[in-house]
C-alpha cells in the first residue's frame, strides 16, 4: 500500500470532519471517546481477549479496521491478533471494540512481546 493510501491517513481524518459537523441542526451526536492511552504516561500494549471477542459470532473486525499502525493487528482464522512488537499502544482498538465486555485489554508494556491468551 502506498503512502497516499495509508490507514494512518484515513484515521487521522476519521474524526476531523465530524467534529466540525458535530454541531448540527440534528440531535447531539454521541462523540467517540478519545484514545485511552493518549494521556497515559505508561507505555501500553494491546491484547485481545479471545473469549470476549465477537469476531467469530458477530463478524466484528472493528479493531483490525481501525488500528492506525500498519501490521500491528492481523486476523488469524477470523480472530484479531495484536502483533505486540508493532503495536504503539494507542488504544484505538480498545475504544472502538463494541463487544459486550470490551475484548481489548491495554496492558503496561513490560516484555518486548506479550503472550496472548487463546
Amino acid at each position, binding site marked *: *500500500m*502506498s503512502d*497516499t*493510501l*495509508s*490507514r494512518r*491517513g*484515513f*484515521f*487521522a*481524518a*476519521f*474524526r476531523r*470532519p*465530524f467534529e466540525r*459537523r458535530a454541531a*448540527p*441542526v*440534528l*440531535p*447531539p*451526536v*454521541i462523540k*467517540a*471517546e478519545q484514545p*485511552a*492511552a493518549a494521556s*497515559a504516561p505508561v507505555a*501500553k500494549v494491546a491484547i485481545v481477549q*479471545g*473469549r470476549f*471477542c*465477537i469476531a*467469530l*459470532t*458477530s*463478524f*466484528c*473486525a*472493528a479493531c483490525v*479496521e481501525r488500528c492506525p499502525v500498519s501490521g500491528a493487528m492481523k486476523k488469524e482464522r*477470523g480472530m484479531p491478533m495484536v502483533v505486540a512488537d508493532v503495536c504503539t499502544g494507542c488504544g484505538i482498538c*480498545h*475504544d*472502538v*471494540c*463494541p*463487544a*459486550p*465486555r*470490551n475484548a481489548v*485489554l*491495554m496492558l503496561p508494556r513490560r516484555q518486548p512481546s506479550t503472550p496472548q491468551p487463546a
Partner: protein
Amino acid sequence: MIQRREFNRMTALAAAAAAAKARAQNAPAAPAASNDGIAWDKAPCRFCGTGCHVRVGVKNGRVVAIEGDQLAEVNKGLLCVKGYHVGLALYGKDRLTQPLLRRNGVLEPISWEEAVETISQKIMAAPEQFAIYGSGQWTIPEGYAANKFIKAGLSSNHIDPNARLCMASAVTGFLSVYGVDEPAGCYDDLDKCDVLILWGNNMAEMHPVLFSRVIDRRTRGERVTLIDIGTRRTRTSEFCDHYLEFRPHSDLAIMNGIAHLLIKKNAFDPKFVEKFCNFRQSPKDPAASPTAPLNGEAMSFDDYKAALEPYTPEHVEKLSGVPAEKIRMLGDLFADKKIRITSTWCMGFNQHSRGTNANRLCHGIHLLSGHFGRPGDAPTSLTGQPSACGTAREVGTMCQFLPGGLQILNEEHRHEAEHIWNVPQGRIHPKIGHHTMLMWERFCTPAEKGGDIRTIWVQVTNPGQTLPNLHRFFKAKAGQPDKFLIVSDVYRTATTELADLVLPSAMWVEKNGMFGNSERRTQQWFRMVRPPGEARDDAWQMIAVARRLHDLGHAGMKDKDGRFLFTFKNDKGEEVPVWEWPRYYDVNVDKALFEEYRLFSRHKHKDLAPYDEYVKARGLRWPVVQQADGSWRETKFRFSEFDDPYVKKGAEIQFYHSVTKDDKALIWFAPAEKAAEEPDAEFPFWLCTGRVLEHWHSGSLTRRIPQLHASMPHSYVEMHPEDAREKGFTNGETITVRTRRGGLRLPVWIDGRGHPPRGSLFIPFFDERLLCNDITLGDIDPVSKQPDYKKCAAAVARA
C-alpha cells in the same frame, strides 16, 4: 474456540459500565454485576429480521441487562453486536417525552389532548387526503390497528409501510410465483444445505447470527459451499468459497444463464416441472388489467426455451462480467439433484428496479431444477426489519392488501374483511391506495398541482432519511403550509426536522408487542418497563384518534351495530375505555387485537395460534395448526407433504394457492435489461448504498448506543484503491460525490470494510448527518413499486 454458551452470561449493560470503569483505570473489566434483584423476561430483539430472542433483565424499572435466549431456536443464546446492546436503545439522552407542535417554525410542547385533537381535526377536514406511513417495525397489533382504522374506519387505502422500500419486490415475487406471500422454507435450510448461494446478500453484516449458524457448521467439520454473487466484496465474501462479481443490474442475466444451461444440457427436473410448474412471462400489455403485471401471461415450455436461447455462458459473461466457466459451475450445481441448494437474498434483489423479476428468476431456477421442497433446498428471502413479514406483509398494511393476504382489488376479499370487521358491505374502498413513493410524491406536490395528500402520519420509521432522492420525495414538503406531517417516534430524526406534530412513543419492552421474523415466526413479548415522560404506545395513539373522530361524529368509526371499532372488554365482560391512557393496560389490547386479526389468517393458510401459545413459545412459524391432542404445531416447510398439513396426501408438493389454480407454481422468464441510469462520461461511477454491521437502518437507535457509535462513528464512501490513486485521493480525505440529484461531502475509505470494484462506490445510509439519499435515484420496479437504492451514476471530486 468460542462457545455459544459463554455469551449467555454476558450482560451487555452491566458489562458496558464495568468496561467504562475499567478503561478509566486501564485494568481488566470486573465481572458483571450479580443477578440479584433482576427480573428476567423474554422478547425478540428490536433490530433485524433475523428475529433472535433476548432475555431482558429489569431492575428498579429499568432494563439493566440483556442476554441471548438459549431457548430460542433462531439464535440459541447468541446475539450480534447490535443485539447485545439493544437495551441501551431505550436510554438515549434525548428521548422524546412530550407531544410537540410546530408553531412559528419551532416545536413546542403541547398536551396529548391537544395533539389528538389536532390530528382529528386534520382528518375530519379531508379524510381522503390523509395517509398513514407505517413500518415493518410496527408490532403486529399496532399495524393491525392502523390498518383497520384507515381501511374500515376512513374507507381509505392510503396506508403503506416502509417495507415498500425493503421487501415489496419479494412480496410480488412470491405472489406471482406461488400465489401467496412469504418463503416456503425457513432457517433450518441453512443447517441442511450443501450449497448456500448469497445473491447480493451480505449476511455476515446484516444477519450476523444467521451467518454464524452457517459458519458454525464449518467449525464442526461439516462441508458447506458458500457462493457470494455480488457487486462488491463484503465481509461475507471473506468466508465464501466463490465470489462472483457481476456488473450492477446484470443478475437477471446470470439466472437466465443458469436456466439456459439446465435446459441445454437437459439437466432440469422434467418430472418436477411437469407435475408442479407452469410458465409465465410479463404481459405484452401491462395496462390490460390491474393484476396483469403481477400475474403475467402464460407461455409454453417451447417459448420459454426459445426465450432463454440467447443466454449462453459466453453471452452472460459479456452482460455480467462473470466468467463463462463460473456460470457453468452454477449450472452444474443446479443440475446436481444429489446436493441441496439454498438461495438467500435481501436488498440486492429487492431494491432493484427489476426486483420482482429478479425474485421470480431465482424461484424459477430452483423450481426448474427441482431444488425445492426438501430441507436445505429452498429459495428464501431475508427481511431487514423485525416485523416486515409479521406486520407489513401478513397484517397487510400495504396499500393493496387487507389482513391475512386478502387483496383490495378482490371484491370477495373485501366482503370477507368487512364481515370480520362487522362493518357494512362497501365500507372498504375498492381502489388500491397510494404506495409509498406515490404517497410522498403527492404529499410534496402542492394541492393545485395534483398533490392529493395533505396530511401524513408516520409511525416507527424515518422517511426523511430513508426515502430515495430526498429532495424530491421528502424535503420538497418544506415551505408548504397546507401540508401537515405527524411523526410518532422515540427520538428526533431527519423526519422530525420537517414534522408539524411530533408524538413521543413507547418502544420495544416499554409496551406489549408481537413481531414476525423472516421465517414466518410470530413472536410475543410483554411490557417490562414504563416509557419515559409522556411517551405512549403507537397503537394507543391510533385508537385515541379513532375515538376522538367517533366522538366528533365520524360515521366510519362505528361498526354495523353502532359500536366503536376498537371496543375491548375485560374478563368481566365490561367495556374498557382504552382510549383513556390510564386505562390502556386495563385489558391486554395486544391480545384482543391479535385474536381478531387471527380470524384473517386462515384464508391463505397462514394460520396463527391463539395469543397465549405465543406467550409460552419463542415464536412459532405459521401455519400453526391445532393437532388432535389440542396442541399447536408449527410448519417449517410449506407446500411439502412431509411437513405442511395443508398438502393433500400423496401430492408430494402442492402449491395450494397457485395463481393458475391447478396447484402449480409459475416459472417466469424475464429478460436482462439495462439500468435506468448507467455510468457515462459525466458520471462515470456506479453508486451503491447499504447498511453496516453496527448500525441498524437509519441509525436513530444505534447511533445513540455509545459502543456502536464508537465502533462506527460516521458514514464514508468506499472506493477502489486504483480509482482513488487516479484521482489523487488520500485515505480519509473528504471528497464530494455528485449525482444528477445533488452532491454529498464525505470521507473516502480505501481498502476499508467493503471492497467495491473499479468504477464503483458504496455509501452506508445510517448517518443522518451524511444523507446518501440526497443523491440516490430511486427508480422504481414497475410491479412492486419498490425503489432501487443500489445503482445510479455518480462522479467524484476533491471537496
